[in-house]
């Protein structure tokens, strides 16, 4: 494995560990609560983040020393593939958010919702870090395409797998829209949030994958990759909480303790339908806007149905949510197509 591939592969592995820690941490909050900063899930989460930061720094230093082509320069000293820098800045955002999040918990309580400022800041940092890994893989893929060198399918699979983590991150960001904060108040109107979030997320990720790969069913494959990992985490997290709780002598909020939540499985699986729609429309109408808008229709329907499983939903909020989901899907598709173009053609 070359340095150009080894660095993003290491970054992706570290971020996967961090995201496993995040899934564990969310289950920990749900069943035990945040009793201190140094909980077992936090150790995994921030261990993964720290390892990503070290790997990104090592990658930058190594590439600066190698002075190989296909890099971007930073501060006229450091040079590395753009993606490694982007991942580094994502990790920096995560690292800054951690103590601020701890401070926020000390002020506002141990069980602050996921939609708290420094949770969102950390999740944005995670998304940026994931994007960086996609840049790094895609740049090498574009170079191999131009030179007609082998290994393109494996590299495309790695890039799509890295990009699928962005969908998992976006689903985590929109998770409170499922139970705790299903609607957003806009003046006199209530708007269902989840349809908008799902439409934007699946369109962004699907269009990015479709344009980067240039062949169907890239969007469906990417969403399937995200679903597979998300379902594995959803199945494993309750057991991990039970195990750590038994070892540490913790008690649960609910008598039953941690259990697998069916909706955690249904959300990623349900997104396969909009992804397939996106693939189909993208084949007929290249570009992301039409494909994103088309994918938004089943995504919005899924969002309304999912929220209705857990809380009462008014017709007005559902209609407004679905209506806003369409332009959100188009916007996500457009942005995804722009990123996909850079990934398909850019070699840095």
């Amino acid at each position, binding site marked *: 494995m070359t340095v150009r591939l080894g660095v993003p592969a290491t970054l992706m592995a570290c971020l996967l560990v961090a995201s496993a820690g995040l899934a564990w941490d969310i289950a920990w909050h749900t069943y035990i609560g945040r009793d201190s900063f140094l909980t077992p899930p936090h150790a995994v989460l921030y261990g993964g983040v720290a390892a990503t930061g070290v790997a990104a720094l090592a990658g930058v230093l190594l590439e600066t020393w190698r002075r190989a082509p296909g890099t*971007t*320069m*930073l501060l006229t000293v450091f040079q590395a593939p*753009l993606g490694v820098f982007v991942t580094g800045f994502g990790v920096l955002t995560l690292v800054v958010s951690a103590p*601020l999040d701890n401070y926020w918990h000390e*002020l506002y309580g141990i069980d602050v919702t996921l939609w708290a400022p420094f949770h*969102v800041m950390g999740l944005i940092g995670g998304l940026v870090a994931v994007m960086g890994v996609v840049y790094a893989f895609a740049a090498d893929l574009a170079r191999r395409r131009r030179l007609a060198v082998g290994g393109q399918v494996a590299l495309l699979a790695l890039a799509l797998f890295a990009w699928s983590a962005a969908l998992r991150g976006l689903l985590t960001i929109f998770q409170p829209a499922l139970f705790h904060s299903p609607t957003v108040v806009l003046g006199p109107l209530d708007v269902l949030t989840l349809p908008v979030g799902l439409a934007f997320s699946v369109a962004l990720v699907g269009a990015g994958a479709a344009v980067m790969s240039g062949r169907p069913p890239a969007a469906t494959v990417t969403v399937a990759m995200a679903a597979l990992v998300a379902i594995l985490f959803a199945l494993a997290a309750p057991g991990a909480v039970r195990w750590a709780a038994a070892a540490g002598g913790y008690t649960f909020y609910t008598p039953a303790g941690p259990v697998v939540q069916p909706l955690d499985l249904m959300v990623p699986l349900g997104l396969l339908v909009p992804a397939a729609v996106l693939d189909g429309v993208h084949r007929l109408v290249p570009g992301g806007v039409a494909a994103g808008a088309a994918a938004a229709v089943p995504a919005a329907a899924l969002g309304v149905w999912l929220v209705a499983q857990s809380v009462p939903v008014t017709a007005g909020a559902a209609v407004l949510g679905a209506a806003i989901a369409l332009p959100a899907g188009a916007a996500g598709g457009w942005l995804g197509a722009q990123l996909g173009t*850079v990934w398909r053609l850019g070699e*840095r």
Partner: protein
Amino acid sequence: MTRPVAGAWLAALALAAGAPLAAAPAVASAAATRTDAYRAGPYTVTVTREDPVQVDRATVFAVAVAPADGAGVVAVRLPGPGTAGRQGRAETAPGARPGTYVVTAAFPVRGAWVLAIAVDGRAGRGQAAVPVTVAAPGAIPEWLGWTIGLSPLAGLAVFLVAQVRTARRLRSAVR
């Protein structure tokens, strides 16, 4: 081949990531004013001040000494038990009326402190120990928390705009 121009967009991301470091938490101001009288040898020292005092902020102690015989007043701040601070001098200035003084002191660490006020005049010498509670920085307001928390979005937006331009350039180069 390297491309330095990308550094601008990366710098924007860096700025967005680093912006929270520059933002200081706001300090809550829930302090009340209190007045207490202390014995300092032959003198009675009356002290009016905020309670609690905010950490690291210049705090005014209005001191009145009776009898008002023009005694000299010197004040020193001393860390109380369990407070990881150091002794320091406080500034003392004469007040508007005879026998009144304005003592200004800043306390660098939250916790228990003592403001020791030494009085030396015609009636004799004495020292009053004024206990001071120094409060920690207050709650960061929610709006500021969200501003800091969402600040990386600004850097991300700048980066994405650059990527949209890059996509246009790459597409036109292919055509």
